[in-house]
Structure formats: structure tokens, C-alpha cells
């Protein structure tokens, strides 16, 4: 047996009631799940609450997980639903707030060309995107999901995801402005 168990093996153990296996799954995907929740909820604390709620819901209903399907989109869907539920509850509070854009990380190549002004403009552009566009661009460009996976997760046609990506990317690239630079070779919408 190999040293690292696949998601599917861990999910099968979790279905059998193994909390340790489910904990490993959560640990493995926590970064992506937090980013997904953050694409719906501007407040990091709310996003973390949504991740926790979603993971707990997934654990409580792990018997409903279909072993024939990949684990990552299943977890993402549950967390996305939890984040949307929480956003509905927080809507009044969040509509008048913009998130802080500061990062605690040290400077890297990207930081050198992105000024605080661009960072703030980018943050505003991200928050100004319709939720579905924000989720789509996060899942595609940041998390590496395929169009079809995003379409299934959001419950919309493939073409809608491509359209959402087009509009989201255009808005975000405009916000990055000079920091964006020339498009990489071979890249397309």
C-alpha cells in the first residue's frame, strides 16, 4: 500500500465512520475550501465559519457521498452551499463593507509590481463581481477546476461558466492594469 491514501480511499474510510480519515480529507483541501468560501463571503471569519459548517454537514451526511464521484467537488459543493446560506444571513451587514486587502506575507515578485493602490482596486473589483462570476474565476484560475466541474458545482451550463469567466477576467485584468502586463503565450479566455 502506498504511503499517501487517495481522496477516494479516505472518503471510503470516512463513510465507514472513520473521523480521522475525514479529518485528513479536510486538512488536504482546507486551503481551497477557504478560498472558495472567501469568494462568497468577504469576511474571513465568516468564510471560516462557512467552511466549518460545510465540513460538519459533509461529515454528518458522509453516508450520502457517492464513492464513484471525486471528493474535491463534493466537499466544495457542500462548503459553497454553507457559504451561500451564511451570506444570506449576513447580507445586510456585508453590503456596506469592503474587506481589508492587506496580507501578512512577505514581498515576492508579484508584490513588487503590485502597489497598495492596485491591490485595493483589485480587491474592490473582486467584491464588485457578481457572486457566480467570482466563484467561477476562483475555482478556475486559482483552484484549477475544469469548466465542466464548475458548471456541475454551480448547476449552470458549461457555456454560462465560460461567459462568467470571460467577464470576471476582463474586470479583474482591468483592475490590475499595468501590473497585469502582456498576456502569456497561448492563453485564452
Amino acid at each position, binding site marked *: 500500500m502506498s504511503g499517501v491514501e487517495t481522496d477516494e480511499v479516505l472518503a471510503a474510510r*470516512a463513510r465507514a*465512520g472513520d*473521523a480521522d480519515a*475525514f*479529518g485528513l480529507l*479536510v*486538512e488536504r483541501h*482546507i*486551503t481551497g475550501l*477557504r*478560498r472558495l468560501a*472567501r*469568494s462568497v463571503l468577504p469576511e*474571513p471569519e465568516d*468564510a*471560516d465559519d462557512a*467552511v*466549518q459548517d460545510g*465540513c*460538519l454537514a459533509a*461529515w*454528518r*451526511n*458522509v*453516508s*450520502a457521498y457517492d464513492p464513484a464521484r471525486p471528493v474535491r467537488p463534493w466537499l466544495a459543493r457542500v462548503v459553497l452551499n454553507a457559504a451561500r446560506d451564511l451570506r444570506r444571513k449576513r447580507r445586510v451587514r456585508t453590503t456596506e463593507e469592503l474587506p481589508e*486587502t492587506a*496580507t*501578512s*506575507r512577505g514581498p*515576492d*515578485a*508579484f*508584490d513588487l*509590481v*503590485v502597489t497598495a493602490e492596485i*491591490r485595493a482596486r*483589485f*480587491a474592490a473589483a*473582486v467584491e464588485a463581481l457578481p457572486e457566480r462570476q467570482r466563484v467561477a*474565476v*476562483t475555482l*478556475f*484560475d*486559482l483552484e*484549477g477546476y475544469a469548466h465542466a466541474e464548475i458548471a456541475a458545482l454551480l448547476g449552470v451550463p458549461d457555456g454560462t461558466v465560460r461567459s462568467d469567466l470571460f467577464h470576471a*477576467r476582463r474586470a*479583474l*485584468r482591468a483592475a*490590475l492594469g499595468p501590473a*497585469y*502586463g502582456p498576456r*502569456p503565450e*497561448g*492563453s*485564452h479566455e
Partner: protein
Amino acid sequence: MMEQPDIGPDRDLILARALEQHFDTGAQDDRLAARIYAVIRISAPESGFDVLAAWLRPGLMAAAAVALAVLFWGTYFKRPAPMEAALAPSVESLLSAAVGTEVR
């Protein structure tokens, strides 16, 4: 420009980096994972029976409510018992007594 890792050609890596920074949650990932792990350790997953029970509970409540309503209806609008009906004077006999003729 930033150095781009070798991943899918369709992804916009500059946007990915910008989004990563925007959504960056840093070293708190481990803390949140540990928090979730602590919660799931003390809450067992639902079995098939739990799901069925959760589904049945509202149905049982509805059935009990209907049964109570039927019971109430039956008690409140109770039809007269056969003995009471037999003792009660008929319309015909009352009419004949009033008019003074025998009813055939």
C-alpha cells in the same frame, strides 16, 4: 513580471496569484482544520436510520394531527344515538297532532 509555475495553459496565472493574495488565509489553515477535526470527533455521522427518522418525524406529526382532528370532529359533531332517534318525535306525528288527522 512574476515567475509562472508550469500548470494548465488555460489558467491565467497572474490572476491566480492576485486572487491567491486577495483570498490568502495564510497559516490559519492548520488551525481551522484542527478546529473542524475537533468538532467532527465529537459528532458522529448520521446513519441511514437517522436520515429515515428525520424524514419520518414530520410525517408522524402530521398523521397525529390528522388523527386528533378526526377525533375532535367525530366528538363535536356526533350523530344522535339510535335510541335518541327512536325517542324523538317524528315530524309527521307532530304535524298530525297539530292538524288532528291521522297520518297514513
